[in-house]
């Protein structure tokens, strides 16, 4: 580095001398070392986000992009394979990333293998694999509810859909499948209590299951009238505030479910994202991952000014910040164009991460809504789910 500084000076002298090459040339640039691979910090900084790239033009070749939203020079830190409608989980304290994927022996045909791959956070190399039996893993455009932790990150739950519905219970630490729970009519997994989960059901109920130490169902309870698919359909992915899952409906109603105990408890009272002028015909939530929380418990909802039936995946142009407990709209953030997914980091000064349909990722201040930086379309083709470092 000292030598580099010196050489820089020499080149400057040369150019000052009218561009002529000096008789006294600098030393050549040194030969560089081959065979090196970058390593990441095993514990990701809080500015990092795991961006699921659905890769619509090659779904078999989906990925997770590890992105530092504070580094506009090199936002993409690395890629983890997430093949064929994959899902991803991140366990920071274990320094592991898990992908649940589907493979065919000839990419598009042949023998099917579903498996969870365990990746090291520092090297992004696979450390192990757990094969999932039956070829029944649910394949969807990315949702968080089809692959979830329970039992303190020791287990994973995998949603199945054939279209018969069930959940496979996996012991991540023991690297083995514990069993399968039939769950007809119910969908998505919301970790509940210390070892269990809840699901939303097609008849409007919610079901909560407590699991035994061997992965079987110890007890279950149905909560009737937990959601209304006809009048207030809920976006599939909630924002978590502690152990409370906050869902937003297609029209902006907020529904909280306390998942801290063995049985889910719908929070009483109605909250709403609020209203605003200028909608044509009205403001509604719109996008893919439309709701996020910050550490203080505020909710951030991606809003479309062109809300109508069928607009719920069209994306939004503003983010509305809402206090769901006080049922109060705190502020509106103009994100300067259409976005499809949002998340809020857990940094000391939290950032609102905005992913756009063309892959552009922008970083705003969650506190005042000002634009901090633009990362460009530098990480993912089709960013679906953004997972912040907790």
């Amino acid at each position: 580095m000292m030598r580099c500084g010196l050489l820089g000076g020499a080149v400057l002298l040369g150019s000052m001398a009218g561009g002529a090459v000096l008789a006294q040339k600098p030393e050549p640039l040194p030969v560089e070392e081959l065979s090196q691979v970058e390593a990441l910090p095993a514990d990701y900084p809080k500015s990092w986000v795991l961006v699921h790239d659905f890769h619509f033009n090659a779904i078999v070749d989906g990925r997770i992009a590890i992105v530092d939203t504070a580094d506009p020079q090199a936002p993409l830190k690395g890629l983890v394979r997430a093949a064929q409608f994959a899902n991803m989980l991140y366990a920071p304290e274990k320094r592991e990333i898990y992908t649940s994927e589907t493979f065919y022996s000839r990419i598009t045909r042949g023998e099917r293998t579903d498996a969870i791959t365990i990746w090291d956070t520092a090297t992004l190399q696979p450390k192990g694999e757990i094969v999932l039996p039956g070829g029944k893993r649910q394949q969807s455009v990315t949702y968080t509810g089809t692959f979830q932790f329970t039992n303190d990150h020791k287990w994973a739950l995998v949603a199945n859909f054939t279209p018969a519905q069930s959940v496979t219970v996996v012991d991540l630490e023991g690297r083995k499948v514990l069993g399968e729970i039939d769950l007809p009519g119910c969908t998505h997994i919301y970790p509940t209590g210390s070892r269990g989960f809840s699901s939303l059901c097609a008849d409007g109920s919610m079901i909560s299951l407590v699991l035994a130490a061997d992965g079987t169902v110890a007890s279950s309870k149905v909560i009737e009238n937990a959601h209304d698919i006809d009048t207030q359909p809920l976006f599939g992915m909630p924002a978590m505030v502690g152990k409370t899952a906050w869902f937003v409906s297609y029209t902006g109603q907020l529904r909280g479910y306390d998942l801290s105990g063995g049985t889910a408890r719908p929070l009483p009272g109605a909250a709403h994202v609020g209203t605003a002028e200028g909608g044509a015909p009205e403001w509604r939530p719109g996008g893919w991952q439309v709701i996020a929380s910050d550490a203080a418990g505020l909710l951030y909802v991606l809003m479309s000014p062109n809300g109508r039936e069928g607009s719920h995946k069209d994306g939004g142009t503003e983010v509305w910040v809402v206090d769901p407990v006080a049922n109060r709209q705190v502020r509106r953030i103009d994100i300067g164009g259409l976005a499809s997914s949002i998340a809020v980091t857990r940094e000391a000064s939290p950032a609102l991460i905005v992913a756009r349909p063309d892959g552009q990722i922008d970083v705003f201040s969650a506190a005042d809504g000002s634009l901090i930086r633009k990362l460009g379309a530098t990480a993912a083709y089709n960013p679906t789910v953004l997972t912040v470092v907790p």
Partner: protein
Amino acid sequence: MAGFDKFAESLARRLARGTSRRSSLAWLGMVATGAAAIPALPVARAATPQHGGGGAAGRVPVTSGSEQDPGDRTSCDYWRYCAIDGFLCSCCGGSVSKCPPGTEVSPITWIGTCTNPADGRAYVISYNDCCGSSSCGQCLCNRNEGDRPQVRPQANNDYNWCLGTESSIYNCSLAVIVGVATEDAG
């Protein structure tokens, strides 16, 4: 909505021919659960971000030849696509009702209800996926009228509906008329 239950039963019977007993029974249950809730809605064009080298640039319209089925079948605006999410098979070597060669049709799928602007009727459209060949990459189209959360599978277009097929690899989506939902949706 009248006649929908009868339609759902007939649809389930037709679908049952092409799929396993267990999955068709599950499907039948789902159709029965959700049938009354599938609405007939006005057609509106949703934002469809284009990605990749494909896309509509330079496409020549493909029409039915019938004035009662108007519109360009390679355009996301075509009336039948009101609840589709995927690549249009009409751009991939297939048509609205036929899968491209080299693929197989998923026997079960989600359905939408779209209004035909020519006759004012709401038709039930089956968005069967074509499977076994990877992402077609042409004419990506995402519209969501009547699309409901995954908890109501038969009204959700986010599932990979390549189910009951030899391969679950997704290539493109059809938009097949399987019935009339309402005589007058206008």
